[in-house]
């Protein structure tokens, strides 16, 4: 079984992002970039399926600029077998990214396509589902547990009310939630070995996809600021402030 893992290059989760003063967006100068944490969980899941003898090839694919080489390499060092980069601007919309990935899917014919449930920059939570619709595949989103046997995936999903278990026939689309697994660190040996793994760079043109845009981001502002309030000394003082000043207690 072949697994395709879609990955995104994003600002690292530990960076304090700064909105530019002119409202034109987030300041990305000299900011640490990483594999989107949810995508990394997806790659880890694929590796575990390979270790369990269920998968035999893992392809990591990224739609983005040449800079995404770094993140695709990380996935290869973790255990993906090869990489694909579809050369494109870094800020494409989910619909266009999914169209590009559909073309890659048609070429590669994987049985399982794994996405992160959201990327921590745009926070859209769309690409996996859009891709599933375009390829007419069933989906299991927000997965916190996965087992596969006889071409059937059993997936536990994190939903607002608790957990939901679905059984989905392959080929299918999975999107990962935080508790699916804890990604490993790449060993030095694997980092060295990954340098020999192949990354193919494709163009959207050769895949027959037009990189269009349907929305315009007019500006990005800082959220209304919240300033620190006061420090109280005791529960006594806290309760009386909540009653008499904030009026949120009876």
């Amino acid at each position: 079984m072949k697994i395709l893992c879609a990955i995104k290059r994003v600002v690292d989760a530990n960076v304090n992002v700064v909105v530019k003063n002119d409202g034109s967006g987030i300041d990305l100068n000299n900011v640490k970039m990483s594999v989107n944490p949810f995508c990394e969980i997806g790659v880890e899941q694929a590796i575990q399926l390979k270790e369990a003898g269920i998968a035999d090839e893992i392809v990591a694919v990224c739609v983005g600029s040449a800079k995404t080489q770094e993140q695709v390499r990380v996935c290869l060092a973790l255990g993906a077998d090869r990489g694909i980069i579809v050369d494109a601007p870094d800020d494409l919309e989910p619909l266009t990214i999914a169209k590009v990935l559909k073309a890659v899917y048609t070429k590669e014919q994987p049985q399982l396509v794994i996405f992160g449930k959201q990327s921590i920059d745009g926070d859209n939570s769309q690409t996996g589902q859009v891709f599933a619709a375009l390829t007419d595949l069933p989906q299991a989103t927000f997965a916190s547990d996965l087992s596969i046997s006889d071409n059937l995936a059993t997936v536990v999903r994190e939903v607002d009310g608790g957990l939901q278990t679905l059984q989905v026939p392959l080929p299918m689309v999975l999107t990962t939630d935080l508790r699916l697994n804890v990604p490993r660190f790449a060993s030095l040996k694997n980092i060295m070995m990954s340098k020999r793994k192949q990354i193919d760079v494709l163009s959207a043109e050769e895949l027959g996809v037009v990189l269009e845009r349907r929305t315009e981001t007019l500006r990005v502002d800082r959220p209304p600021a919240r300033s620190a309030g006061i420090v109280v000394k005791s529960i006594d003082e806290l309760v009386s402030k909540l009653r008499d000043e904030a009026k949120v207690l009876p």
Partner: protein
Amino acid sequence: MSTLVIADHDNSELKPVTRNTLKAASEIGDEIDVLIAGCECSSVVQSIVNLGVARTVHVADAPYFEHAIAENVTAIVVQLAPAYQHILTAHTTTGKNFLPRVAALLDVQMISDIVEVLDATTFKRPVYAGNGIATVKSNDTTVVLSVRGTAFDPIVPGTLATATNTLDSATFPDPSPTTHIKDELAQSERPELNNAKVVVSGGRALGSSESFAFLEELADSLGAAVGASRAAVDAGYVPNDMQVGQTGKIVAPELYIAVGISGAIQHLAGMKDSKVIVAINNDPDAPIFQLADYGLVADLFEVIPEFIRQIKEGS
């Protein structure tokens, strides 16, 4: 210009967040229809009729809508879509599951998690865990939106007579190949996290599920919902549906009490629009104090019993 709102429900009750979604829809235009896709969901239909804000409620009632499987719900929405310029649902795990599929089949770029309607095609939405608020304009002919419930008041009931349009099951789509196995849903007497007036949340510092019972007592004395940080959920102290944050639930209660939570940006993303924030933490430098209205630097195990006692005494 007419709008379709897909209701969020559990087949017996309309989820309150639907009213917030309807409010967002009303800021776009007056002509609002609702779709209820479910199974034996007549009480949900009645709730929409009673609300008196929709022209028509479309009812797709069939066994395979029972668990809101994304492929099934998508197909029925896509059938109705040509009559609408706007299609909205709540940014819940149900909405996030099917709405992007709808947008894909309509060849539309959906706009997720809107917090403000500026005009019929321009919206505000948070990005980067709420560190930025983007103003986004859609150039698609159909505008597909998911709505952050806490950013809109619930719609005020109206007097509109709502027609019921029962969809013909012969037109229903072929069912998804997916089989629903089971739901394990939290049963709780407490208010729902999403729309509670008071939320008490605990973090890693609680150390065990037994200690969380302690916070539950505080919550119950306040009539509050209980939330948690990711660290507390990952450690298994509480189930996943309690996680507040960028990748969990978004809450904006009148009062949010964070106990033993450091205030990581991903947690703040889920609660910083609360009206009053209280933080109890033994580290005076914990980031949560930078946005708390009232901070108490203390060991939670020492002060929570006293907090419970004073609340119980006062009420």
